[in-house]
């Protein structure tokens, strides 16, 4: 999914803990609310009707419901409630939503019980935009437009209109243990082949060279591999972007790593946790910036960071970046008041943004001018990482890449990496799914 960058702790704890019952409840709820919207009294609009409601501000009698997913870091909820309470022009009620946030929020937008302002991973989906469930927020950006991380802003923009204001940036990158590389006489690799060679040298005994997730990178590395070959999911003209022998070559490299048995597989905690690296199960790991506090605790200064390398001279190094974006529901009773609040919090209140990005978890402010002010990102590996996010950051997947395309791509990656399927044959299968999907969403 396109939101795999986001808030790993909570997705690990809750996102993956979906049960069939809650799936049915969700599907059923969507169907029932359509029929019975008028009968429902628990619309979430009354104070304290939903979990963790906090009413803030005073203002002009307008009440706005703002939804967040449940962040894993302590203090985040109190922080957003504090920002909301400080807003004077409306009463903002913050709802803190545990569980499968993306799905339940998407379903709630079909009803009148949804939020006025809500965050969504990498901005609203193309179907939300096409379905006119969210409103255009372009004019909120004003002069600040160029200050936001460009690849993130582009991801939240469709046909020149921006539908979400980025809140904080998360990123993934390659982290390695300096001492292990020194001992093996390996320098940080600059190309994929150098990376494979390094991983081979670093694989010794119970230590593997590289950790790309328990599926050997099938779920995580598809995008970075395409970018490393200088390609992308979609071409500039929104056509299928990787029906290209270089894509086959790049994706095949993951299989090469798998066959060479240099990849760590079956770690108790997957790539989004630092424990494989800190426990010495692997020498290099592709992981998220959010693990830095844990890595620091476990390894002190014995680690370095780098982008995912280029395939060769004509490719590009990259780091995936993602952000929750603040959106305004078209079903809000007062769209203008909701937009005004979003502008207030996520464009104007730079000190709140800095606080939100750095005081609780380990993130990068969405506005690049704030990065310099962030004490957490001032020096060392964190500063290097923040620079990578700005310089070679690449939004995880394009807005037109629908869940169906994503599933087809994930299937192909699994077959290529785990079963050794022919990459070009698999790419053709993805194309067969993606082209009708693109046609549908662009219609």
């Amino acid at each position, binding site marked *: 999914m396109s939101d795999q960058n986001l808030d790993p702790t909570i997705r690990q704890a809750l996102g993956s803990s979906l049960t069939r019952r809650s799936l049915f409840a969700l599907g059923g709820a969507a169907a029932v609310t359509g029929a019975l919207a008028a009968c429902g009294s628990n619309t979430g609009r009354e104070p304290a009707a939903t979990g963790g409601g906090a009413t803030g501000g005073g203002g002009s009698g307008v009440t706005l419901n703002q939804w967040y997913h449940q962040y894993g870091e302590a203090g985040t909820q109190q922080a957003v409630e504090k920002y909301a309470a400080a807003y004077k022009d409306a009463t903002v009620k913050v709802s803190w939503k545990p569980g499968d946030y993306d799905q339940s929020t998407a379903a709630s937008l079909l009803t009148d019980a949804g939020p006025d302002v809500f965050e969504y991973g990498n901005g609203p989906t193309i179907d939300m935009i096409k379905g006119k469930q969210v409103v255009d927020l372009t004019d909120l950006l004003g002069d600040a437009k160029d200050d936001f991380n460009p690849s993130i802003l582009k991801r939240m923009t469709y046909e020149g209109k921006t539908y979400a204001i980025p809140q904080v940036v998360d990123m993934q990158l390659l982290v390695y243990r300096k001492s292990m590389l020194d001992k093996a006489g390996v320098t940080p690799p600059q190309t994929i082949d150098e990376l494979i060679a390094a991983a081979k040298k670093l694989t010794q005994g119970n230590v593997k060279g590289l950790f790309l997730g328990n599926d050997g990178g099938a779920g995580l590395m598809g995008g970075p591999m395409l970018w490393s070959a200088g390609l992308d999911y979609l071409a500039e003209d929104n056509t299928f972007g990787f029906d290209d022998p270089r894509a086959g070559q790049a994706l095949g490299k993951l299989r090469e790593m798998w066959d060479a048995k240099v990849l760590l597989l079956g*770690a108790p905690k997957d790539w989004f946790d630092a424990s494989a690296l800190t426990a010495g199960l692997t020498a290099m790991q592709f992981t998220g910036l959010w693990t830095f506090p844990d890595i620091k605790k476990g390894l002190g200064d014995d680690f370095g960071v780098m982008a995912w390398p280029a395939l060769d001279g004509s490719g590009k190094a990259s780091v995936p970046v993602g952000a929750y974006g603040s959106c305004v529901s078209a079903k809000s009773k007062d769209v203008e008041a909701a937009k005004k609040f979003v502008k207030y919090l996520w464009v104007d209140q730079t000190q709140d943004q800095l606080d939100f990005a750095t005081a609780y978890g380990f993130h990068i402010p969405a506005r690049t001018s704030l990065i310099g002010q962030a004490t957490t990102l001032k020096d060392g590996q964190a500063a290097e990482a923040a620079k990578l996010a700005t310089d070679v950051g690449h939004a995880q997947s394009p807005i037109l890449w629908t869940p169906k395309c994503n599933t087809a791509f994930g299937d192909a990656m699994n077959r290529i990496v785990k*079963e050794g399927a022919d990459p070009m044959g698999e790419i053709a299968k993805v194309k067969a799914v993606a082209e009708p999907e693109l046609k549908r969403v662009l219609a």
Partner: protein
Amino acid sequence: MFVGPFVIGLVVFVYVPIVWSIYLSFFNAYNTVTPTEFVGAGNYLDMLRDPAFRSSLLTFVAFAVFIVPTTFVISLGAALLVARTRVMQSFFRSVFFLPTACSYVVAALIWKMSIFSGIRSGLANAVLGWFGIDSVPWLSLADPPWYWLVIVTARLWLQVGFYMILFLAGIQRISPTLYEAAAIDGAEGWKVFRHITFPQLRATSTAVLLLLLVNAFQAFDEFYNILSTFGTYPPYARPPLVYLYYTALGSGQDFGHGSAGAVILTLIIAIVAVVQGRVLRLGDRGE
């Protein structure tokens, strides 16, 4: 009068969504539950033409063929053993039944992260280590398909106790006079089971088989929690509901195709259940 509230609940939360879902399956329903564009059987054809959906259906027919008899035999065996136990019967009954009280999600995470983790400290790999065998990344490999071992053991652990209790209730309802008569005729052991216990359990067996079958096709919880990796699910061992969740009913919100897929799945369950009833002729002469 007394059933009124329940009937209303049933209608509102069960029948209306079912009918609504069938209705949606004939429409182009992206991000809406009140669609306007009728597409006839289009969604059904799309789903049946989708190789990934077909493969998940096939996988789960095969899965049902394996898991239904296996669970049936093991839970019946456990029930017979517990029923014959003279000492501490309620202790054994509770021990076998306890996993039923465990959440599928919790069990799945324990299986995934503790028992079958891919490193040496995982329980299964630690045992292999005693025999000098290399660690196996159980859930990472597609070939050989060790993931089935993880899923099937988790499922059996979770389910056997529940069906055992059903069988146990059935066994305890069999009149002792039948066994006495059999004993007088000199029947014992296997013969008693073959000619008295098993035939007398016909009604229970029918119910258990049907429940097992529906359960196999509706598999979701343990598969999702064991095999999904942060936003993706591998293309193998993917239950139809998991596939629908990823492509249509999750963030995709493609209710037309999703509902069509769900209706197809329901029809398959219904057909297999009817065929199973006919073939096994269970329930025909039940009590």
